C-alpha cells in the first residue's frame, strides 16, 4: 500500500514537472515574441515611417512634408527672466560665454546662450525698443 502510493505520488510529481517545464517554455516563448520582439517590430515600423518622411532635395520642407514627432509635453511660455544693464552685472557671466546680441533702433540687448538650453528655455518672448521679438537660437 505504502509502495503503491509512493509510486503514484512520484508519477504525478513527474507529470507536474513536465507541465511546469512545458508551461514555462511556452510562456517564455510567448513573452519573447509578444513583448520583447513586439517593441522591436514597433520601433522598426516607426523608424521606417520616419525614414519615409525624411527631408531631402526630393522631399523639401513644406506643409506637405511637415512630420513632427512628440518628444516632450508642450512647455509653458518662459517667464521670470530679468533685464539688467550689462555694466551692472558684468560678473553674471564669464568673459568667454557666448551671447546672442541684437540691436533694434539703437537699443542693444544680449541673450546668454548658457541660460537658453533645454526644452523649458528654448524660446524667450521679449520686447526691445517697443518691438516684440522671440529670442531663440
Amino acid at each position, binding site marked *: 500500500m505504502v509502495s503503491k502510493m509512493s509510486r503514484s505520488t512520484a508519477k504525478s510529481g513527474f507529470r507536474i514537472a513536465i507541465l511546469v517545464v512545458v508551461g514555462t517554455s511556452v510562456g517564455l516563448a510567448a513573452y519573447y515574441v509578444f513583448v520583447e520582439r513586439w517593441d522591436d517590430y514597433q520601433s522598426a515600423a516607426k523608424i521606417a515611417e520616419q525614414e519615409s518622411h525624411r527631408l531631402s532635395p526630393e522631399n523639401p520642407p513644406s506643409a506637405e512634408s511637415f512630420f513632427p*514627432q512628440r518628444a516632450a509635453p508642450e512647455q509653458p511660455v518662459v517667464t521670470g527672466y530679468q533685464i539688467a544693464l550689462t555694466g551692472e552685472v558684468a560678473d553674471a557671466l*564669464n568673459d568667454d560665454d*557666448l551671447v546672442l546680441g541684437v540691436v533694434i533702433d539703437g537699443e542693444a540687448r544680449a541673450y*546668454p*546662450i548658457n541660460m537658453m*538650453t533645454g526644452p523649458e528655455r528654448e524660446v524667450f518672448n*521679449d520686447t526691445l525698443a517697443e518691438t516684440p521679438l522671440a529670442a531663440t537660437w
Partner: protein
Amino acid sequence: MYARRVDGRTLTLAVSGLLWESSLVMIDQETQSLWSHLLGEAMQGPLQGKKLDVFPSSMTDWRAWRSRYPDSTVMLMSKTTNEYRRGVHLNELPLPTLPLPDALIIGLANDSAAKCWRFDDLRVELAINDRFGDVEVLVVFDSESGTASVFGRQVDGGMHTFRFEDNKLIDDQSQSVWDPVTGVADSGVHEGRQLSKLPGIVSLKPAWFTFHPDSTTWAPSN
C-alpha cells in the same frame, strides 16, 4: 532672433514639445499654429505659410558684446549649462551635447536660395568677399571673440572689398578700418559708417542642409 508680429498681430511663442527632423517646433499661443524653428515658417495651423521676420543678430562672447555696447541690457536667468563658450567657435572646445563630429556654419536664406559658410573656412580666410543672389556680401570672422557675421559690401553706394591685415579688417578702396563684429568703421575715410548687417544664422551643417536641401556651401576654390 525673430519678430513676433505677423499681419499686425503679436504672437507669443512656446516650445511645442514636437520635433521635426530633430529640430525644435514652436507653437504660438494665439492660434496654436506650429512653426519650424530654423525656417521661421508656420508649417501647420491657421497661420500656415506665414513667415517670421528675422532680426540680424550676433553670436559673440560676453566680453566683446559688453565692450562694444556698454549701454546694452542683458536678459538674465539661472544658467542651464556652461558649455557654450567662445572656444566652441574657435574649435578649441567640442560642440556641446553632440556625440558625432559636427560642423558650425553661418548661413543666409531667402525664398529662392540658401548659402552657408563653414566656420572651418572662416577661421582660415577671416574675410570672404562673396555674393548671395544679387547681393554682394562680406562674411567675416573675428578670431578674438569667435564671432562670424555677414554684412553687405555697399558703402555710400559704392561696392567695397575687404581683407584682414595685421588683425584689422580693412577695405581695399578707402583703407578704412572696420570692426568685424559691429561693422562700424573705427578709422579712415568711412569712420563712423556702418555696414548693413544681414541676418546670418549660426547653425550646424546637417541641420542647415536638412531644412535648406538646395543650399550651396562656399568653397575656397570659388
